[in-house]
């Protein structure tokens, strides 16, 4: 018994703040929302138990649910690779003996600091308008571009571009990762007459795999949870024509605009399970492609 305490006391002592926070701020609320997902609750009266009805409606009848899945998955599939590729490209250019790297690093991080302010929403509309900057450039090539944000066929791409533009944090993480690749490896490859492209694919990428993995996981979770930027650019409701109906925006509107907290909770749990599955699969497959230098534990 004494041994049990000696063994566990320090660990749990240090874990106490987190455990408290976990139970009070995460687990408790999540269980409440799990309960709510089996009820109908308009946030004013008392919740009414409806069993699986919310989930049934979601999967069998709700076209907008499937639309929101479509939008979210398309976004995740486009934006995450685009942002990471962009971040990696810039990081590689910055990593190779550039003077004044600090200035560029700061400049490139700035858009990420701007986050999802009202200013960005207004600006983004100005840029992608029918007579905005993008079309002004395109007209020089004889192309009359559409209204990028207003057109349901193109609106999602403007958000992908926004995601690319705010590539600051993955870039920083890549930069740190590149720092840790020993130069000797490139010198050895140079002697082995490997081309730059070959060097990238056979040295940089494999050695960066853990960093890449970390970035992919975090960025994908973030992308699934995308809210602020899409919210302000789509007028808060996923317009035009539901083409920006991200899962979180749908969820938010169901809860806070249409007072369907029960249904919103069911949506939330569905999202949680989707992200959870993705993460589990990523971790499971990672051992086949992520190479750790010092495999331990």
């Amino acid at each position, binding site marked *: 018994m004494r041994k049990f305490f000696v*063994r*566990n006391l*320090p*660990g*749990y*002592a*240090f*874990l*106490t*703040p*987190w*455990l408290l*926070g976990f139970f009070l*701020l*995460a687990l*408790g*609320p*999540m269980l*409440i*929302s799990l309960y709510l997902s089996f009820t109908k609750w308009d946030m004013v009266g008392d919740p009414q138990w409806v069993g699986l009805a919310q989930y049934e409606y979601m999967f069998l009848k709700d076209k907008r649910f499937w639309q929101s899945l479509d939008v979210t998955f398309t976004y995740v599939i486009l934006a995450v690779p685009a942002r990471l590729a962009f971040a990696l490209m*810039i990081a590689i250019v*910055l990593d190779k003996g*550039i003077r004044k790297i600090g200035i*560029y*690093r700061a400049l*490139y991080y700035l*858009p990420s*600091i*701007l*986050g999802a*302010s*009202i*200013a*960005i929403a*207004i600006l983004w509309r*100005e840029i992608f308008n029918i*007579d*905005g*900057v993008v079309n002004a450039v395109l007209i020089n090539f004889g192309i009359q571009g559409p209204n990028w944000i207003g057109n349901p066929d193109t609106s999602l791409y403007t958000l992908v571009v926004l995601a690319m533009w705010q590539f600051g944090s993955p870039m*920083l*993480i890549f930069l*740190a*990762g590149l*720092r*840790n690749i020993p130069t000797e490896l490139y010198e050895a490859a140079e002697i082995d007459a490997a081309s730059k492209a070959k060097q990238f694919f056979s040295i940089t990428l494999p*050695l960066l795999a853990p*960093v890449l993995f970390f970035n992919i996981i*975090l960025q994908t979770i973030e992308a*699934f*949870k995308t*809210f602020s930027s899409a919210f302000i650019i789509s007028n808060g409701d996923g317009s035009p024509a539901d083409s920006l109906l991200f899962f979180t925006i749908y*969820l938010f509107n169901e809860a*806070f605009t249409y007072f369907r*907290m029960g249904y919103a*909770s069911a949506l*939330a749990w569905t999202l*949680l399970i989707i992200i*959870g599955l993705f*993460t589990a699969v990523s971790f499971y497959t990672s051992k086949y492609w992520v190479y750790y*230098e010092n495999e331990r534990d």
Partner: protein
Amino acid sequence: MPDTTIANHELNLASQSVEAKNTNAAEISKQLRANRHKRESRQALLKHLFLGFFAILMLYPLLWMMAASVKPENEIFGNLSIWPSAFHWDNYAHGWNRMQVSFTTFYANSFLVTILSVIGNLISCSFAAYAFARLTFDLKKFWFALMMMTLMIPYHVVLIPQYVLFLELGWVDTYLPLVVPRFLAADAFFIFLMVQFFRQLPRELDEAAMIDGCSPYKIYWAIIMPLSLPAMATAGIFSFIWVWEDFLAPLIYLNDMNNYTVPLALRLFVDQDSQSAFGQMFAMSVLSLVPVILVFVIFQKLIIKGIGMSGLK
């Protein structure tokens, strides 16, 4: 082009007699070096041009915003120029005092909340990370998995239950709902970051300290913390930026304008169906970025170091 020049040189070199080669060696190597310098500086120039072009692309929105902050109200929309026809600097002065409560108060509130939150994050997350990375106890893996899962929770769902909790505690319209969760390690990202960092520190240090008579508590304080300054700085800066910009929690929990934080105050400028004050809103937006940019610029080297040492390799 430069490559062929060098190749020619080398051909010439080969054709010359050995003696001539010796006498000319110094001169030729000087020439070769000069060529290489030229080629390298040309490459560097290209790189700088490329990076500079991108930087401008990156910067344009910020410049536009700064321009909008001094433009006449009717010039802001439908106008992509970053050079205003007239400079309304008074947007800044007027914006600062436009509300019932001056921005001085909003800044003071924001700093109070942000600094307390950063401290809370650093203490509580490093506690949890130390336990996960260094101590042994039952169910460790189970808790770790749960901790990772909290990263995935969509915030809007827990909003209502959390609100009810804080309401029951009588904490609404105080800073407690904003600050206390940070003292309870609510932000799992930082725990994860620190766990990665702590794992990189040699375990022998802990063991040496154990033999030197340190309890786990003292090891945390006397060994792990002093060695984790870069990681602490990284977490501190990220949490500074995120808390400073956080808007949803202050919106939900703060009622009295005297308690508002800067991002919340910015939302007071714009109304959908009557007179808005966009110029002033942009002026204050620009000012609200200043602390964040300063923190980033001053500490960015530490961030790189912090991430670099966090074992993400």
